[in-house]
């Protein structure tokens, strides 16, 4: 029996299983073949196409769309996977509205771009559901590479290295590989265990062994990895979470948004997942939006995203903001948390209005209290557990253009490495490029 949206506190089963199933359905349903043909036909096959320039993984978008239009989605998939082996996930999670589709000349002309993301999904789904893995391994090089972290960067790097004939061992801290594809991002962007199926499909290349439950630490050191392998690729992500540093942060009901999302992604029964009646998410990035929207979809009565700057500064795209609004999430701008109140458990959050001058943010003194039995912290993640010997650039691992770290024989990519946009697609590109450089170095 559903508890209802107004059940007090943090409760499971606010909605019926049917309602939850509907709410967590695919955000962008897959195209039927004719829809794909019509959508593909809208592409103008631009010269030196702006969409390709905008794609962090340099997928030849006009070519793959033409391949769809001419009835060969499998060839289109190959074009995509040549550049981005996680093209299936990127088709689902890429903020295309700020990348390829933003610069589509159809966007310029009509305010309606070619739906590149959905076309990419059509192509990649077609090939992946047929069970075909389109790549074969080159002759064995006899080299082995250690990849630390089985997220997008690590998987991409491992696949490319394996394809080029190297053997790869991936060390993954969690019990399951996939990284943020598996534990992050909103469930409605990766339905039907897509992340897991994608990893299985990727591993069909062969030559990749994944050892789960192994994080860098006492038992697994960089020196040890270097001794056992010809090269090391670090793709350890950002596992630390920034604290609010406000009074009451330790109260029950205050937790990290990434943990909530990970629980949600791993839940067998979403109805059994507890969520607050009144949820406040602190932050302005994709994680904040994902946590807020999914809270609402689980049946929270009131969900507010509180962001300390204005709408334009928000990390989440306008599309994501509008998605949140359409699901009934309230977006508050120019407010920062100053305290969580409550007797043991959170009951209210106190926010102070902010004003920004010359990029410096300061509180105005005016405050507002929101009822909040659950507060999610989504104000950014930090690098944790990086080897001491590797030099940092700011708060991330310093890398060259192709991912070389300060330590010889050690490369890094993905969210843990400096530069990039902290996007799945960027991580995939960095993993791929590092693999090419590693292979070249080992072959030299």
């Amino acid at each position, binding site marked *: 029996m559903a508890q209802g949206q107004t059940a007090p506190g943090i409760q499971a089963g606010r909605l019926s299983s049917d309602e939850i199933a509907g709410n967590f359905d695919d955000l962008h349903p897959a195209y039927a073949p004719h829809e794909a043909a019509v959508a593909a*036909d809208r592409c103008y096959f631009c010269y030196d196409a*702006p969409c390709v320039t905008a794609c962090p993984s340099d997928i030849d978008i006009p070519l793959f769309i033409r391949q769809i239009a001419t009835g060969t989605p499998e060839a289109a998939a190959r074009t995509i996977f040549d550049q981005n082996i996680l093209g299936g996930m990127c088709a689902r999670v890429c903020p295309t509205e700020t990348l390829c589709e933003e610069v589509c000349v159809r966007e310029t002309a009509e305010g309606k771009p070619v739906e590149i993301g959905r076309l990419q999904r059509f192509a990649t789904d077609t090939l992946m559901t047929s069970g075909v893995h389109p790549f074969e391994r080159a002759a064995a090089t006899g080299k082995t590479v250690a990849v630390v972290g089985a997220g997008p960067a690590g998987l991409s790097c491992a696949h490319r290295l394996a394809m080029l004939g190297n053997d790869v061992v991936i060390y993954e801290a969690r019990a399951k590989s996939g990284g943020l594809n598996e534990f992050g991002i909103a469930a409605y962007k990766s339905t039907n265990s897509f992340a897991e199926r994608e990893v299985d499909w990727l591993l069909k290349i062969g030559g990749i062994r994944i050892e789960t439950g192994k994080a860098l630490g006492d038992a697994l050191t960089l020196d040890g990895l270097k001794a056992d392998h010809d090269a090391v690729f670090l793709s350890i992500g950002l596992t630390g979470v920034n604290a609010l540093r406000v009074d009451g942060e330790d109260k029950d009901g205050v937790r990290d948004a990434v943990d909530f999302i990970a629980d949600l992604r791993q839940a067998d029964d979403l109805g059994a997942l507890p969520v607050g009646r009144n949820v406040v998410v602190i932050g302005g990035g994709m994680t904040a939006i994902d946590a807020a929207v999914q809270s609402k979809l689980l049946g929270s009565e009131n969900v507010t995203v509180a962001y300390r700057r204005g709408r334009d500064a928000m990390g989440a795209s306008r599309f994501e903001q509008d998605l949140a609004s359409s699901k009934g999430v309230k977006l508050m701008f120019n407010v920062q948390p100053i305290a969580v109140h409550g007797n043991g458990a959170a009951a209210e959050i106190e926010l102070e209005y902010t004003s920004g001058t010359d990029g410096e943010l300061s509180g105005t003194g005016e405050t507002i209290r929101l009822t909040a039995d659950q507060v999610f912290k989504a104000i950014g993640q930090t690098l944790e557990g990086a080897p001491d010997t590797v030099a940092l650039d700011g708060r991330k691992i310093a890398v060259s253009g192709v991912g070389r770290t300060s330590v010889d024989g050690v490369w890094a990519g993905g969210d843990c490495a400096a530069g990039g946009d902290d996007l799945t697609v960027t991580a995939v590109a960095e993993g791929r490029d590092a693999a090419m450089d590693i292979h070249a170095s080992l072959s030299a």
Partner: protein
Amino acid sequence: MADLTTNFLGIQSPNPFWLASAPPTDKEYNVRRAFEAGWGGVVWKTLGAEGPPVVNVNGPRYGAIFGADRRLLGLNNIELITDRPLETNLEEITRVKKDYPDRAIIVSLMVPCEEAAWKAILPRVMETGADGIELNFGCPHGMAERGMGSAVGQVPEYIEMVTRWCKENYDKPVIVKLTPNITDVRFPARAAKAGGADAVSLINTINSITSVNLDAMAPEPMIGDKGTHGGYCGPAVKPIAMNMVAEISRCPQTNGLPISAIGGITTWRDAAEFMALGAGNVQVCTAAMTYGFKIVEEMISGLSQWMDEKGYTSTDEFIGMATPNVTDWQYLNLNAISKAVIDQDACIKCGRCYAACEDTSHQAIDMSEDRTFTVNDDECVACNLCVNVCPVDNCITMETMEPGLVDPRTGKTVTEEYANWTTHPNNPSAQAAE
């Protein structure tokens, strides 16, 4: 609202939109629906001689090519003439004509190339009260193998002979339908005129294979495991048909011979274009087969609106108006100089003009770092390819250079003076300008 009433060979119809001889006009039921929908006339599907009717294949009769979103661009068919008894057709024609005296009904005919066969059928047609006949000398498949259809239409002497038989044995207008499956349409048109034809209609369908089934390795449509060439029609054939209409219209020997235009007419504009090239009316088939009879409403409203905008009160006022401007290449003015101009506000920066010009033409479009595309007049020969590949209407236009300006490509001053190839110094056969 402009009056669309058309007088073609003395046959009145409320508008110039007739349905061509084809499946849509094979039966009383269809033709009544067409007239209720507003069609000005029909050419009844071709009747054959008395006796057992022809048979059609029992598999697919049509093949097609498509544009975006399965928009039907070209259709081909391997259907034959009517496969219903002659008597049935004649009875139906009689009934329909009686009920729709204001609409044109033309009866299409195809009988063996013997005078007796024509003499036998013509009185029967006369009795129906139909307004005229159209001689099917065009059907390119099936019937041609039996010495009829395009087998006649490809031999001018036969056209003239059969036309003469019909004129001698039938009192109403005789229209000769021409096949495009020849090298020069003026020859069969002249033959029709010599035989006494009141008009020609064209084009019939074009021999074609629309697609090949790459699994079965056979042309489509497949009947069993084989296919055959069919007759191609629809929007894709319109340019071919318009040229043939224009050739007959501007040929001194056939100029003035009334023309009923056929070939891919889909909208009012298509009709207006054919009529501007000299057609007195138009016949439609594929568009009706694709969208149903209702499209005639758009054709009527569109042609009326355009005529009103232009101040034409009758179709006669614009029929043939474009014909004098169709000329031979050798008479084109080589002193008329144009240059492409790109409207930067309208440009969406797709770069198709650049790819087209750089890869396949004259390297006359420059591309900047920020994707601004500009025409380099030093190289532009005004070929128009950029205009044609640009996806934005009126973004790239051809601007004629004013006399007195210097063409930076040739360094020559643009002159008002007309000069063509016949007087050009590079022409070994050049004649001195008069």
